[in-house]
């Protein structure tokens, strides 16, 4: 061998940490003199990191029941399959969020009107998640008990998605969002035509404040919102009329104030 050469396979194995010490040292020496290869290694490792950050949380999700049953045989798989999935519950879910404030500057604390801030955030959340085909919700309605337990824990107070089946909307599931005053619960509903409505539920409102229904529009999203005791509520939709949305809001209100 007249000239040392780094093979592609060797570089890949280096990225993956699969080389023994002498070969690793040889690759490191090569990279020191070849910055373009060194950049590739760095980029490949960033990609690997991003992949793990994006998908490792799946390991901690509860396993859906349908996956823990044997087909046809009618006998249940070992119960600990479900248990194993629940163990690390919620820990990782809060860690990664793709929520982002784009072109919406945070208003100064003094200028914050809690209601309108909430309405805007609710509209943005609706605009962001309701068109989503792949991940409309973080936890589906098939795991409603888990959803309720998780969001209640993160909001620090019991929360419950209202039942809107009577007016034609079934719960799809929910997710956790960052709010201006701690975590926010976000529930999504869908009617048979596919129209989606979301409920933005914020805890920690000032107890002395209550408001009537208010209405806002933000980027084609209609929002009815109100503050009642310790919760702020915002019902959003881009697809139904103001009157229809009012009916939904009213139903939600009545369920929380029987």
């Amino acid at each position: 061998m007249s000239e040392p050469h780094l093979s592609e396979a060797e570089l890949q194995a280096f990225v993956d940490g699969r080389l023994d010490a002498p070969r690793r040292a040889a690759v490191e020496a090569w990279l020191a003199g070849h910055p373009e290869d060194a950049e590739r290694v760095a980029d490949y490792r960033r990609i690997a990191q991003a992949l793990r950050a994006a998908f490792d949380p799946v390991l901690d999700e509860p396993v859906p029941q349908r996956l823990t049953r044997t087909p046809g045989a009618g006998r249940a798989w070992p119960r600990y399959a479900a248990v194993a999935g629940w163990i690390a519950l919620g820990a990782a879910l809060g860690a990664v969020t793709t929520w982002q404030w784009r072109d919406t500057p945070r208003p100064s604390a003094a200028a914050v009107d809690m209601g309108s801030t909430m309405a805007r955030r609710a509209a943005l959340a609706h605009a962001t998640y309701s068109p989503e085909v792949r991940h409309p919700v973080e936890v589906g309605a098939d795991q409603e008990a888990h959803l309720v337990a998780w969001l209640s824990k993160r909001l620090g107070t019991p929360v419950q998605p209202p039942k809107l089946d009577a007016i034609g909307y079934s719960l799809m599931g929910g997710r956790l969002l960052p709010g201006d005053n701690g975590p926010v619960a976000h529930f999504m509903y869908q009617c048979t035509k596919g129209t989606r409505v979301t409920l933005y539920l914020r805890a920690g409102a000032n107890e002395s404040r209550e408001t009537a229904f208010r209405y806002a529009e933000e980027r084609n999203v209609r929002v009815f919102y109100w503050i009642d005791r310790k919760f702020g509520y915002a019902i959003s939709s881009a697809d139904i009329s103001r009157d229809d949305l009012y009916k939904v809001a009213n139903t939600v209100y009545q369920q929380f104030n029987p």
Partner: protein
Amino acid sequence: MSEAQRLVELIPRLRRYARALVGDRAAADDLVQDTLERAWTKLHLYRRGTDLRAWLFTVMHNVHVNRIRALRPSEALDEDLLEQSQHAPQADALVMRDLDRAIARLPEDQRAVLLLVVLEEMSYEEVAQTLDVPIGTVMSRLSRAREKLRLMMFGPSATAKLKVVK
């Protein structure tokens, strides 16, 4: 521990791989469900003492490939989309979304290799065994997958000065 118990313990890993492979949560769990149903009926064919994880991921791979063949004729990397992604990522959230899309644009066989290496941390030999391809193929797919992802996520400027990777 019985094979059935070990198989059940591998479900979260199947779900992680499936999620990265097909993207959509429900579709990924459908794939896992089909895989488990098949694995459950074929478990008597599994040879004790061999790698159950590789066996199970092979089952998933075969189920996945069959489903793709049933759904669409072929899948190819869209070079136009590659060229559109010239911006640099500005925040972690953006990286995540770009990553999601970029993975979806990788050719199936390259995506599978990359995910088994990075997420499952399989050895190259295990990947070759799981996907039933020669190890040289594993290495070339891994290399191509990484370079394509890099181009999609970090833009052509990152790769402009490089020779073509074989």
